[in-house]
């Protein structure tokens, strides 16, 4: 039986890594992957608390999140491909039309 604080620390570290990736990475694909990391940190949390309270809801939610994440990545990658076709780049920095 793993102790709960350990799991939460792991989840927090994973989420922080994801945040860093989203904010700092230039490559859009890596940004999407970082979002994946954040979602999975949440999943770890949901499963851990489900185990703690001996209640199935957390795990059901985790499954939902996985499904939604899969869809999200699908759409995200499609957008990335379209941007690449139009702009010949996938650097997030250079996609800045929406400004003053």
């Amino acid at each position: 039986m793993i102790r709960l604080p350990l799991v939460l620390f792991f989840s927090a570290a994973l989420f922080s890594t994801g945040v860093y990736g989203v904010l700092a990475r230039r490559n859009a694909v890596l940004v999407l992957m970082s979002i994946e990391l954040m979602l999975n940190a949440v999943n770890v949390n949901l499963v851990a608390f489900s185990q703690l309270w001996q209640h199935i809801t957390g795990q059901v939610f985790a499954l939902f999140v996985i499904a939604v994440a899969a869809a999200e990545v699908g759409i995200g990658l499609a957008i990335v491909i379209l941007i690449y076709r139009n702009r010949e780049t996938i650097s997030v920095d250079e996609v800045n039309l929406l400004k003053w």
Partner: protein
Amino acid sequence: MQAELAAEPGILQFAWVIVVLPMASFALIVFFGKRMPWKGVEFGVLAVGAGLVLSLQVLWHFVQGGGPYEKGLTWAPVGPFTLEIGQYVDGLTAVMFVLVCTVSLCVQVYSIGYMHGDTRYTWFFAALSLFTGSMLNLVVANNLFQLLVGWELVGICSYLLIGHWWEEKINSDAAIKAFITTKTGDVPFLFGIFTLVFATGTSNIARISEAAEMGHISHGLLVVAALLLFGGAIGKSAQFPLHVWLPDAMQGPTPVSALIHAATMVVAGVYLVGRMFAVFSPAGSAMAFVSTIAGITMLIAALLAMVQDDIKRVLAYSTVSQLAYMIAGLSLGERGYTPGLFHMFTHGFFKALMFLAAGSVIHAVHSSNMSEMGGLRKSMPVTFWTFMIGGGALAGIPPLAGFWSKDEIITMAFKTGHYGLWVVTMLTAVVTAFYMTRAMLLTFFGEYRGHGHPHESPAVMTVPLVVLAAGSAVVGFLGAPQLSAVFADWVHFGPVEHEPFSYGFAAISVLGAGLGLYAGYSLYTRWTEREPLRALGPGYALLENKYYLDDIYLRGIVRPIQYRLSAAVSWFDRTLIDGIVNGVAKLTQGVSGGVHGFDLTVIDGAVNGIAQTAGFTGGILRYIQSGNVQRYAAFLFAGVVIMAIIITRI
């Protein structure tokens, strides 16, 4: 007036239709007249024809012994006073309906021929319709204000029609003179209405009459009201000293003269006195004044008619004189009521006839001067015979209409003890016969003195003449005592009284007429270049210059007003009124300058300030919108963190 109303008003309820018909015809002619095949004449003739049929039915109601009918609708309540619109139909109204519709119908049919080819043909008929409608409105009115509306409309119509050929200055001058002179009488008339409304609190004629009869109005107030109302009648019915407009009104087309003199306009004054007789009757001193005015007018107008060369002017002065007869009849009191109004009725027929006949003559010889006529009886037989009937009726030859009515007035003047007035009426009767003989001899007998070949007028003009001649010949019998004098049953004041016929008085008046006829015949059988009456010397000059009344009015009233008063008013206008107006304008300008400044600085400043502030703030804040998604995400996370901190602290 008669208080009890008819149990079954029947046709009387629809008497207002008679008034509305010509009014509607006026509108139709104005809007559609020119597009109609007969240029709008059909509307006028149909409307007045239908009106005549209805009028006869209304009269039939009274022939059968029906009572009067009154019905008013509230038009506009003004405080405690209510303005009404309604109808009061009694025997007098019915008789007037018949007279106005008959004369108007004849005049309109006649005008088809007389006005043929006129530039404002359609408009002429529109004005005739309006004229008729206005007079009928005056006649049917159940209250003084509605009567006043008709009264003024009649005035404006006469103005329009007298000035129908306004291209010539003399015509428009005559129209203006007619309008302003009658208006001079309208001012006292209006104040007379105010007096009565003040005294009784209502303008309803029946209620005022009732109040006057019951003695609810003080005697002094009654006298004042009667005198003021009579002021209106002086102007409208062309009595001395305001009679000067009527002869000048001859400048209008002749059918208009016939309409003005016979049925509309001038008889309005007589009708007013008859309608408001309850106010006049108890006011003895006012009646004495009325009587005096009538006596003066009667004689001076008849004398003036003797010296006129213009055939229409002879008839015009004769109208003034005959109107004075009617008013004199009314001024005799209750017993003179029926004779006075009966003369109005008969006079309507023969005066319309004579004007139309004179128009027919003028149409043929292209001149209205009798010195250029003569011998027309052969070339214009119908006109001649109808004119003879009209002239005979006017001169009082029995058994024509004028004899019966005039004789009644003269006899009544004697019977009621007005001996002075009786002498004047007798004298006037002699003079009347004289000038009518003169006019007939100069026009139809002797040798033709004009140019060209006169010929009889077309049937459309002679048929109305014949109709009116028949009327002039027979309507007198309505008042003949031998034939039970039915007219008195329809038109009477107080109880019906049938005066017995006095052969003695009739003989005197016939003798008077015969004297005038003889004098005229002996002077005018042979045409002389020099007017025989010139033998009168200074008297003739006085008559020829119309007693210098026109000159006195011109020098004494018109010119001072024109040159002195208008100059003074003009000065007053330019300095004081304009000063005030300009001052107000300057003040307004100054204020608006101030307002303008306030607007520019404060209001605009506020508006622009707000806009500038928003722009400035936006200019700073826009740099947040970098377009960099990751920066947005950073803000988002920062926000989440801040919110998490706040929430956990709470």
